């Protein structure tokens, strides 16, 4: 067997494994989410299929495959079918770039499917491809509510993508590389980045929620206003694929946050004193961190109410974007003028900024909470004209 074929096959195998892992996680994620939400809302959640409802995901899967797959008459058939495939394809692909351990740590193989120098960039690019799935799905349905949902979701996703992209700039300046391995390595040496980029992390976290269409940013499928948004006309497996994509995106986002701000696949360094090499164990640490963030996602969903659409957009453009820029500039200024001082001051600055924001939150809120003017329709049209 030639070398390249072996590499190819191994990559393929890893890809299949990762995909299967993700799908399983997705399946149980839904169960866990429903159970947890039930617990938070003082009700049991699904508990009939199998012990503690453990077989519920399997049942859901079988149902969605065997359900009738409707394609509404006005839909653009090809795009309508393609949209969920794109959505899930991009979501799954994105995850493959995240390293789960040091090189060659997994039976002599690398614990990642692919590794690019521009890791973050590639990942951001792939995740933003997800918006195509949603938009095309909504558009191809040829119906009013899906269209609105699609528009909303694309507007929302692109708006928050800016915040997302800008919020990691400070981090990149500190680290000086875009490869995940490099970032993880830097954190192992200098301490996890959440310490120095608290503000950046906060912004990234919020953007991630918006990017994955999770509460409080789940406007695209806000059933009270637009039925189910872009999903309105979807049923059976295509619907399931969209759901899958959403959850996989959540997992990916969790993984990215874990990698960028929380040391990635490395465990805390002091644990090496207990069991040598413990912090280098592949997969374990990453999964643990992902699990934490997934819990956070569910927790927030159980806690926060949904934003109104105009609030959502204002929040993204008027608060997130300038703050991310400010974070970048502060980091840049710090790096330019720090002299030989350590990084701790930047951490303090960042925390202080975050704290200040929290303290001033009542004042800051007016920025996005209420519209400053009511625009007459004619003016809105004219603004589009020029």
């Amino acid at each position, binding site marked *: 067997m030639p070398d390249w074929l072996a590499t190819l096959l191994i990559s393929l195998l890893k890809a299949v494994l990762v995909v299967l892992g993700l799908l399983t996680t997705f399946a149980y994620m839904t169960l866990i989410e429903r159970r947890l939400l039930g617990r938070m809302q003082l009700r049991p959640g699904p508990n009939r299929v199998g012990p503690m409802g453990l077989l519920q995901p399997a049942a859901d899967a079988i149902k969605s495959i065997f359900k009738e797959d409707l394609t509404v008459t006005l839909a653009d058939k090809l795009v309508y079918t393609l949209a969920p495939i794109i959505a899930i394809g991009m979501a799954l692909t994105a995850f493959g770039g995240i390293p789960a351990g040091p090189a060659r740590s997994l039976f002599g193989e690398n614990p990642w499917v692919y590794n690019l120098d521009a890791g973050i960039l590639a990942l951001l690019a792939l995740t933003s491809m997800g918006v195509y799935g949603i938009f095309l799905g909504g558009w191809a349905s040829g119906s009013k509510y899906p269209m609105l949902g699609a528009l909303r979701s694309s507007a929302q996703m692109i708006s928050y993508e800016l915040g997302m992209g800008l919020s990691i700039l400070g981090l990149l300046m500190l680290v000086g590389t875009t490869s995940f391995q490099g970032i993880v390595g830097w954190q192992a040496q200098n301490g996890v980045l959440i310490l120095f980029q608290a503000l950046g992390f906060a912004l990234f976290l919020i953007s991630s929620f918006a990017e994955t269409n999770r509460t409080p940013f789940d406007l695209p499928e806000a059933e009270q206003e637009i039925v189910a948004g872009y999903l309105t006309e979807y049923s059976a497996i295509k619907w399931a694929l969209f759901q899958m994509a959403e959850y996989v995106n959540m997992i990916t986002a969790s993984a990215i946050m874990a990698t960028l701000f929380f040391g990635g696949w490395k465990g805390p360094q002091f644990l090496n004193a207990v069991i040598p090499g413990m912090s280098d164990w592949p997969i374990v640490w990453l999964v643990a961190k992902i699990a934490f963030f997934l819990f956070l996602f569910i927790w927030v969903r159980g806690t926060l109410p949904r934003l109104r659409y105009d609030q959502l957009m204002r929040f993204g453009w008027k608060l997130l974007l300038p703050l991310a820029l400010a974070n970048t500039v502060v980091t840049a200024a710090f790096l330019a003028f720090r002299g030989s001082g350590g990084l701790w001051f930047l951490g303090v600055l960042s925390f202080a900024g975050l704290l200040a924001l929290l303290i001033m939150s009542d004042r800051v809120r007016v920025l996005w909470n209420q519209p400053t003017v009511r625009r007459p329709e004619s003016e809105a*049209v004219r603004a*589009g*004209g*020029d």
Partner: protein
Amino acid sequence: MVPTTYYLALSGILFALGMIGVLTRRTAIMVFLSVELMLNAANIALVAFARSWGDPTGQTAVFIVMTLAAAEVAIGLAIIVAIFRKRETTNVDDLAALKG
């Protein structure tokens, strides 16, 4: 390593397609998309050449070109949308106020 010629051939084909699009398509949007195709052909050529010279200048040029393309998209779409909203057509042949 793939020879530079292949990339050039690809870029040439893309460019030709774009050119044909510009010359034959009658909808503003399609003309515009063809132009974007041509820009991307140029990008591919730039990257290919940059690789063959082992020189990063070409890649930075691609960066700039991408920006220009984006700016063009923004302004072009604004103009096309403005026209479309006013008269429901972006067919280039329908715009005949300025013949003569």
